[in-house]
């Protein structure tokens, strides 16, 4: 997928999971903009039970060594599953409400710890939400 760097589990720093094709779309957008999709793994929770969602996230975290989980809705099943994972592992970080600006900030911040990178990304994502109206 990525044009700009090698892909593989060792490069992955975060799991992105959400409704429908949300995560695939976001990861694809990251790739189009900066070619760094290899730092993310997108998962869909379509058709999965809550237990299967948690299992899928845990499997990807174990496979890649990633410590950050991005989810779409705070009320979503993926967020609830991620909360369970974070509760049991202090090295994991969850960011819910992810958008494209969040992920773009995250993939560039490779020198920061997972927690620091997640906080920076969340701040950037929040700041990217603006309302423009004709004055």
């Amino acid at each position: 997928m990525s044009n700009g760097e090698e892909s593989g589990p060792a490069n992955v720093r975060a799991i992105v999971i959400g409704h429908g094709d949300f995560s695939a779309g976001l990861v694809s957008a990251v790739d189009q903009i900066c070619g760094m999709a290899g730092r993310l793994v997108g998962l869909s929770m379509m058709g999965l039970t809550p237990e299967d969602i948690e299992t899928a996230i845990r499997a990807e975290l174990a496979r890649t060594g990633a410590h950050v989980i991005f989810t779409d809705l705070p009320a979503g099943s993926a967020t609830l599953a991620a909360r369970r994972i974070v509760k049991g592992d202090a090295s994991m970080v969850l960011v819910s409400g992810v958008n494209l600006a969040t992920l773009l900030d995250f993939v560039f911040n490779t020198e920061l710890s997972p927690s620091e990178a997640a906080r920076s990304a969340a701040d950037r994502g929040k700041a990217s939400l603006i309302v423009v109206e004709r004055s």
Partner: protein
Amino acid sequence: MGIHLYRIDDRLIHGQVVVGWGQPLNARFLILVDDLVASSDWEKELYRMAVPPEMDIYFADVDTAIKEHARYAADPRPGILIAGDTESMHRLAKGVKAIGSVNIGGIHHRAGRAEKLRYIFLTPAEEEQLRALEASGVEVTAQDVPSARAVPLSEVLAGASK
């Protein structure tokens, strides 16, 4: 007002419930009927954090929900009641005669379950519980989101709409 939707959904509180149904129904409270969740402070806190500030959430095991149902139904605000499985909803409906209809919103794949709809998989025991629910006078349909067609139980069990 009171309870506008009785829903069976194994994901309990999630986007389809809070946003998909909650917004068009203008739901202001949720009742999560689940014996396991009701017995765990951690589980209750987990689901409480998933609910937007304008919604209240109440937790009850099935027996408590039966006892408290009249109070929920008399609430002046619109609300949604969610049970995580067919057995809980069947028990609830046996104890509460006021339930007129039940929505099956999502029962996902697990060993021993057969696919009936894209979002509904059932064991033979679960099929029987739904048949018994309908036989008791409750209308049972499957509908994941408000814009979808409400599929009658007979059609669900026949697997005709897969």
